[in-house]
């Protein structure tokens, strides 16, 4: 579980990109963060693992405030929080399996990681995860030869390689065609249910959020405009979030 309390981030002295945001993300649930462009969805998501530093508030994860951690502590927390990006952010000249194995870098010593000294268990696990996301036959294919949907699934497998408690997905289907988007959302939804993972997804598509999310957080101008189970997301609520 991640509990965010009064999180505030200023971009300039008088303009807050996040203002007093308090929200709780539950394990075993898919939480969709929706809202207009520039509302602060990415800032909120990236604040959770401190890829973006915020200014005020608390972020409780496994009973520790992520914001108060030193570099070492933060690295340990990041190992438990997987992340999936809109543009996949894979190292494209490398193969799918090498990219998935990058998920283990946080657990390895610097030199072992630099020299790609992975154990047999880790290699088997990477192969298993690629099969799990339907890419068993593409393990040794360079990522620049994969389609967008396949790249995103490699990205998910890389995040899963961290054995995370939380999965942060920053617009994971924004660059995908509808069919690939459905495959990716199905995988994310299955992970939340079967692995009891906290899955947090930034989305632009309200209908996708309605189909796949258990909980919706609506953000407008850096403030929480909606925070309730998906069943409560009626048309009026959507209007309020996107006003």
């Amino acid at each position: 579980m991640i509990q965010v309390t009064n999180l505030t981030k200023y971009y300039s002295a008088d303009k807050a990109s996040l203002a007093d945001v308090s929200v709780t993300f539950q394990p075993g649930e898919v939480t969709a963060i929706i809202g207009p462009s520039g509302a602060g969805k990415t800032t909120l998501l990236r604040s959770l693992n401190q890829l973006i530093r915020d200014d005020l508030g608390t972020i409780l994860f496994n009973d520790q405030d992520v914001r108060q951690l030193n570099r070492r502590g933060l690295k340990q927390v990041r190992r438990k929080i997987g992340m999936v990006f809109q543009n996949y952010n894979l190292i494209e000249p490398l193969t799918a399996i090498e990219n998935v194995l990058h998920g283990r870098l946080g657990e390895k010593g610097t030199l072992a990681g630099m020299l790609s000294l992975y154990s047999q268990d880790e290699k088997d696990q990477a192969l298993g995860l690629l099969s799990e996301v339907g890419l068993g036959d593409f393990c040794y294919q360079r990522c620049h030869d994969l389609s967008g949907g396949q790249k995103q699934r490699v990205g998910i497998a890389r995040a899963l390689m961290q054995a995370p408690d939380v999965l942060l997905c920053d617009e994971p289907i924004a660059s995908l065609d509808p069919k690939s988007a459905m495959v990716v959302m199905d995988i994310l939804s299955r992970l939340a249910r079967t692995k009891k993972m906290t899955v947090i997804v930034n989305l632009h598509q309200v209908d996708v959020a309605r189909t796949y999310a258990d909980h919706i957080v609506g953000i407008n101008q850096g403030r929480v405009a909606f925070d309730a189970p998906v069943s409560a997301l009626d048309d009026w609520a959507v209007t309020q979030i996107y006003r």
Partner: protein
Amino acid sequence: MDQQTTKQWAFFRRKHTRLFLVLLSALMLYMGTASLMNFQTRSLLGIGSGFAWMATNFVPNQASLSLLPAILYQLWRTFLIGISAATCAGVVAFLLALMGARNIGCRVTLVRVVIRGFASVLRNVPIVAWAMILLFSFKQNDLTGFLALFVMNLGFLIRAFIETIEDFDGDKVLALKATGATYGQIVVQAVLPEVSVPIVEWLLYMIENNIRDATLVGLLTGTGIGFLFDLYYKGLQYGAAGLVVLVIAILVIGIELSASKIGRVIA
């Protein structure tokens, strides 16, 4: 004339006037500098006979062909020095470029500025000047030639590598950072695979360039193929000097062709 035609006429008149002024300025610039230098334009008319003399005297003859083994030996040495200077400079330049790049380099701006400034100084002092400076410090030997090429390569490659690394998408660094990867791991596992192709291409270009520069450097430092050229030239053995130029040209073209082939293979 309707308004459209008038507008069209004015547009093309402006365009032609501008072209005329550019040509006139170029002509006046030439005449001005030529008169200051006391350069007689009509001396250009004798250029043909100059080329004819060159073609007659610099063509390798039977006597010069007997010197081929010695020439090839020096060319081989020059080639090796060119490769070693480029690869050594490449390693140092990559480390400095990592520190100097804005996206993943040192957070202290001063360090980045110093690295760029250092590269700029190395690059902007002409190779001839470096060869002369190093000649006084290290005397006449292969090391002096190597150092002159190394210094120039370093200045050039730092700049090229910084630009290559800065083109690398910072979000990919973010993705590895999110896994808890260390800086060293990010460099080796993400930056290096992404930039390796342009870096190898730069190195191949540098090697090719080094063979050309080695001739000049060797001429000044008394080493390699450049020294041999100087020796034959001053000894009035123009055929042998021509043979030196010919083998250098063949080697450079060979490297150029293999470089583009290697580039295609690794891409």
